[in-house]
């Protein structure tokens, strides 16, 4: 395909590498599945809206089953989920050790 180079004057960004906010992260949340009760409080507090609590129906209604998914492309590692978790089931771990 033929292309033409166009010049733009003034301040603007045409490459959006920084908009994937996951690249900002230095610590990441790690969830302890034994402690987590799938209450969904972390999902409600996440400022980026990247936490997704998936619950599944089970025969025994007293026991929750499912998982918590976090979209690491956009999770900035702010740690709010770890702070609000009532069961201390989220630990922020160093990206270099992840």
């Amino acid at each position, binding site marked *: 395909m033929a292309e033409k180079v166009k010049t*733009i*004057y*003034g*301040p*603007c*960004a*045409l490459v*959006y590498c920084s908009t994937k906010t996951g690249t900002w992260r230095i610590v990441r949340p790690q969830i302890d599945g034994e402690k987590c009760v799938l209450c969904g409080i972390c999902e409600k507090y996440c400022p980026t809206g990247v936490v997704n609590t998936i619950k599944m129906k089970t025969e025994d209604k007293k026991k929750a089953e499912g998982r918590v998914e976090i979209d690491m492309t956009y999770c900035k590692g702010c740690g709010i989920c770890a702070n609000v978790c009532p069961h201390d089931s989220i630990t922020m771990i160093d990206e270099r050790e992840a």
Partner: protein
Amino acid sequence: MKKVMLEGNFAAAEAMRLARIGVVSAYPITPQSPIAEVLSEYTGDGRLDAKYIRVESEHTAMSVAIGAQLTGVRTGTATSSVGLALMFEMLGVAAGLRLPIVMPVVNRALVSPWSLWCDHQDSMAARDTGWMQLYAEDCQDVLDLCLIAYRAAENGDVLVPTMVCMDGFFLSHMSQAVYVPSQQDVDDFLPPYQAKNLKLDIADPMFVNNLIPPTEFMEMRYQQHTGFSNALPVLNTAMKEFETQFGRSHSPIEPYCCDDAEAILISLGSMSGSVKEMVDQYRAQGKKVGNLKIVSFRPFPEEDLVAAIPRGARVGVLDRSMSMGAPAGPVCNDVRSAISNQGLNVRIQGFVVGLGGRDVRPVAITSAFDRLLAGQYDKDVQWLDMSDNAMTLRQYREAI
């Protein structure tokens, strides 16, 4: 082309209507308010197909104009005095984003003291924000210069926003028979607006006005400088094209009786008419004086200005504002710089006149011409037509 009785504010609004502005965001301020009002009427009754966005301040008025213009429409706003001061931050944004917004500025003094009336301190304070500045002498100039400004500012080699400055009350509220061109003629002169540089388009996104590090900042400033370097020839061409289309001639500087003049007064705006009247009276007495009117203060027409001054002529500058702490007013400082830059050694007498709405009376102009003709020069700027009791205006008695 029909002739209509218009005040300067209405002449500006007519030009904006004829330029088919698509978004209006104006905040009223004396003496600009009639522009905001008449644009609202035009939008309301359908004479102008535009969206009128009500804003709570001049800062927002310019912000809205910037956002709208980025989507590819001409936008309309106008202001005065402290309104222009409140817009200051966004003036730089419009200039840096290279948005060719054309804004009538109705010149009014800046605080303090409070004044509703004319001088040039407001636009002079905004001199270095990266806007072109054209100064109108009469109401016809207001309409013509607005149309010329759109044409020049929107040129792809320029892309610099432009203030069309008119003296508050002296022009903004003065009726004059003004030729108003037909929509068809203006459409031929001003094709539909296109965003030639930055644009907001959901289908082709770009992130504008982001933080720029020291590694690129100077280069972007230099881009603006280049736009201004291109502006003067483009402005000249736009004025010639305007003359072809509408039959009225304009020029970045307008010399009057300068060819053989022994004394020349340089002026901006409406006071130029008074200076020309005094030139006629002096010429009738055989005294060779002239007037050099600067229409385009930014870009500053340095070469043309110096070329218009005959060798040996004594030159004074009438500033309608003062650059406190500087040797003289802003126009005089620039004229001195231009004279020096062109390799001439001429002393330029600085004068300050007509602040805060004071008329530039014949007595001010004659005292300036007489000083020049007598060869008097004072390195200090001369404040003309002032009361003798300037330093004792307010006094009270205090017990010892």
